C-alpha cells in the first residue's frame, strides 16, 4: 500500500513539472503575438484572439504576424492585390500568404476587392498540384488508426446555427452554367458526359460508402461542389443513417398498409428542426456512427510484484507521451520508480449496427488486434451483445447481455456528443446498472473509472 502512494506522489510531481513547462511555453507564444497590427480599413478585432486560442496549430500564423510590422501597415485590400500580382507571376506560395493575410484582416476581402475594382475580375488561376497535397499511399484495409481525444469538447456556438461557410460561393455558382475543365487538354473528361441526375445517382452510391469521399469529391471542381450540395443526396443519406430500430419491424408493417411510411414521417418532423436542410440535419442531429468503433480506454498503474510471473520485460525504456490535456503512458515499465510500476490499459469497445444491435467488449488487447474481429459472433470473455435506441436530445440507451452471465441484463445510458475532431464522435456515460433476474436486484455501477468513448473509423467495416 505504501508503494502505491509513493508512485502516486511521484506521478503527481511529474505532472506538476510538466504542466509548468507547458504554461511557460504558452506564455512565450502569447507574448510573441502581442504586437497588434494598427487598424487598417476593415479590421476585425476578433481575429487576433482566435489566433491565440489556436495553440494546437503549428507556429505558422503567429510568426507571420510578428514579422509583418517590419514591412509596414498594410490594408487587407493591399494584401489582396499583392496576392493577385504574385499569383499572376506564378509565385503561388507568396500569393497564398498574402491572401491569408487579407482574409485575416477582412473575412470578406474578396467582396471588398470586387467593389473597389469593378472593371477587374479576380483571375481564375489554375491551382497547380503544388498547392494541393496528394497522398497516394495505398492504405491497406487492415490498417487501423485509433484516435485519441485531445482538447475540449465541441461547443455549439450560441444563437443561430452556423451557416455553410461556402454559402456565398454556392449562391454564385447556382446561377452559372458549370462545366468541368480538362487537366490534359487533349484528353476528354468522361465523367462529364453524365447528366446531373445520373451524377447524383452515382454519388448516392459514394455517400453511403463514405461521406468523406463526397466531401473530397466536392473539392475537385466547382461543378462537383454544386452537385454535391444537392438536397436529394443528403436526404438519401439521412434515410440510411437514422433509424428507429426498435420500431423497425412495426414500421415495415405500417408502411405496407399505409401510404406514408412511418420512418419518413419522423424524418420530416425532425427535418423541420434543422430548417429543412437535409445536409444540416445529417451534420447536427445526433446519430450513431456505424463505420467504426467507439473506444473507451482506461490507464492505470499497477504494482508489478503481484504480476511479475505473468509479464515479460518487453519495453524496458520509459516513453511518456505528453499531449495537451492528457498524460499518456505507453510503456510497461518505468525504471526510475523504486518499485516496478506497470502502466496497464484496458479498452472497452462499442460497435453499433443499423438494425439496432450493438456489441460491447472489454479487454486489454490493443485496438488494432481487436477491431477486425469485433462481431456479435465472436467467442470471447467479456463480450456483450444487445440492442440500443436513441431518444430525443441524443440520449442513447443500451440493453446488453453477456453470454457467460445469462441472468444479468446490463443497462447503460449515454449521451452522444461531438468533439472538435468531428461530430457524433463521443459517448459520455450517464448511468450504468445491471439487473439480476434470479435475485431480482438492481446494481448501479459507479462511473468513476468509466471513461467516455471516442469514435475511430475502421475501413473494413461495411455497415449498409
Amino acid at each position, binding site marked *: 500500500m505504501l508503494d502505491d502512494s509513493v508512485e502516486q506522489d511521484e506521478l503527481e510531481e511529474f505532472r506538476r513539472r510538466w504542466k509548468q513547462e507547458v504554461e511557460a511555453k504558452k506564455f512565450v507564444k502569447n507574448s510573441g503575438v502581442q504586437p497588434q497590427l494598427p487598424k487598417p480599413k476593415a479590421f476585425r478585432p476578433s481575429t487576433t484572439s482566435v489566433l491565440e486560442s489556436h495553440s494546437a496549430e503549428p507556429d505558422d500564423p503567429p510568426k507571420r504576424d510578428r514579422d509583418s510590422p517590419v514591412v509596414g501597415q498594410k490594408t487587407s485590400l493591399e494584401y489582396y492585390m499583392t496576392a493577385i500580382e504574385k499569383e499572376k507571376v506564378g509565385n503561388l506560395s507568396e500569393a497564398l500568404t498574402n491572401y491569408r493575410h487579407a482574409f485575416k484582416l477582412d473575412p470578406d476581402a474578396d467582396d471588398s476587392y470586387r467593389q473597389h475594382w469593378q472593371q477587374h475580375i479576380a483571375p481564375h488561376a489554375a491551382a497547380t498540384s503544388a498547392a494541393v*497535397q496528394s497522398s497516394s499511399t495505398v492504405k491497406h484495409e487492415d490498417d487501423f488508426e485509433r484516435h485519441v481525444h485531445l482538447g475540449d469538447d465541441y461547443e455549439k456556438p450560441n444563437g443561430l446555427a452556423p451557416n455553410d461557410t461556402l454559402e456565398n460561393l454556392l449562391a454564385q455558382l447556382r446561377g452559372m452554367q458549370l462545366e468541368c475543365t480538362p487537366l490534359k487538354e487533349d484528353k476528354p473528361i468522361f465523367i462529364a458526359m453524365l447528366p446531373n441526375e445520373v451524377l447524383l445517382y452515382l454519388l448516392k452510391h459514394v455517400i453511403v460508402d463514405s461521406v468523406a469521399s463526397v466531401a473530397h469529391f466536392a473539392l475537385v471542381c466547382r461543378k462537383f461542389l454544386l452537385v454535391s450540395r444537392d438536397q436529394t443526396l443528403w436526404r438519401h443519406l439521412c434515410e440510411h443513417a437514422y433509424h428507429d430500430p426498435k420500431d423497425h419491424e412495426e414500421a415495415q408493417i405500417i408502411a405496407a398498409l399505409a401510404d406514408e411510411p412511418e420512418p419518413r414521417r419522423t424524418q420530416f418532423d425532425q427535418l423541420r428542426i434543422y430548417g429543412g436542410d437535409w445536409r444540416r440535419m445529417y451534420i447536427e442531429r445526433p446519430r450513431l456512427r456505424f463505420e467504426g468503433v467507439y473506444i473507451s480506454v482506461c490507464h492505470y498503474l499497477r504494482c508489478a510484484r503481484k504480476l511479475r510471473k505473468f509479464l515479460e520485460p518487453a519495453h524496458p525504456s520509459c516513453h511518456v507521451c505528453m499531449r495537451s490535456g492528457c498524460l499518456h503512458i505507453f510503456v510497461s515499465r518505468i525504471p526510475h520508480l523504486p518499485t516496478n510500476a506497470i502502466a496497464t490499459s484496458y479498452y472497452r469497445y462499442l460497435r453499433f449496427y443499423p438494425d439496432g444491435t450493438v456489441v460491447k467488449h472489454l479487454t486489454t488487447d490493443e485496438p488494432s488486434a481487436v477491431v477486425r474481429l469485433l462481431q456479435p459472433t465472436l467467442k470471447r470473455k467479456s463480450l456483450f451483445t444487445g440492442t440500443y435506441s436513441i431518444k430525443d436530445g441524443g440520449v442513447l440507451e443500451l440493453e446488453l447481455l453477456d453470454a457467460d452471465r445469462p441472468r444479468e441484463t446490463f443497462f447503460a445510458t449515454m449521451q452522444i456528443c461531438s468533439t472538435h475532431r468531428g461530430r457524433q464522435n463521443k459517448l459520455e456515460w450517464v448511468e450504468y446498472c445491471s439487473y439480476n433476474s434470479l435475485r431480482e436486484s438492481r446494481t448501479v455501477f459507479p462511473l468513476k473509472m468509466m471513461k467516455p468513448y471516442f469514435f475511430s473509423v475502421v475501413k473494413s467495416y461495411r455497415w449498409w
Partner: protein
Amino acid sequence: MSVRKIKLTSSEGTEFVVDADVANQSVIMRNMLENCEAHDAVIPLPDVTTPILAKVIEYCTHHRTGAPIPTDDANSVPKKTDNIGKWDTEFCQMDQETLFDLILAADHLDIKPLLDLACATVANMIHNKSPEEIRQTFNILNDFSLAEISKDNERMEQK
C-alpha cells in the same frame, strides 16, 4: 410455345437478336414490347452504339432469370459496393469511356441492376481518394480560384 425473339438495332444499324427475357430486363423495352403484339419485334436504339449494346446484351443474357424485375423506386437502396459478384467484377473491367457510356445506356434503357453495378464500379474509383487523386483519375482541372480556397481555409481555421 417458342420464345419471343426481339431484334435490337444500334445507332450504326447493327442488328442483335435476343430472347424476350433478355430484353425484358430493360423497363423501356419491356413497356414497348407489351404494347406491341407482333411476335417478332424490332426495337431501334439510335442512342446506343454497337459495342455498348453488345455489352448491355452480354449483361442481360448472363442475368436472365425469368423473374419479374421490380419497378424502379427513386429512393430505393443502391447496390452495395462490396457485394459485387465475380462475374460482375470481371464484366466491369473496361476503360472509363466504355464504363460511362454503359452508365448512360443503362440509364437510357432503364436497366437498374446494370446501372447500379456500373455506378458501384465508379464509386469504388472515387472512394477514399483525395481531391487531387480524383482529379487525376478523371482528368479534371481545379477551377477554384486561389482566393476561394484560401477564403475557405481561413474560415475553417477560425471555426
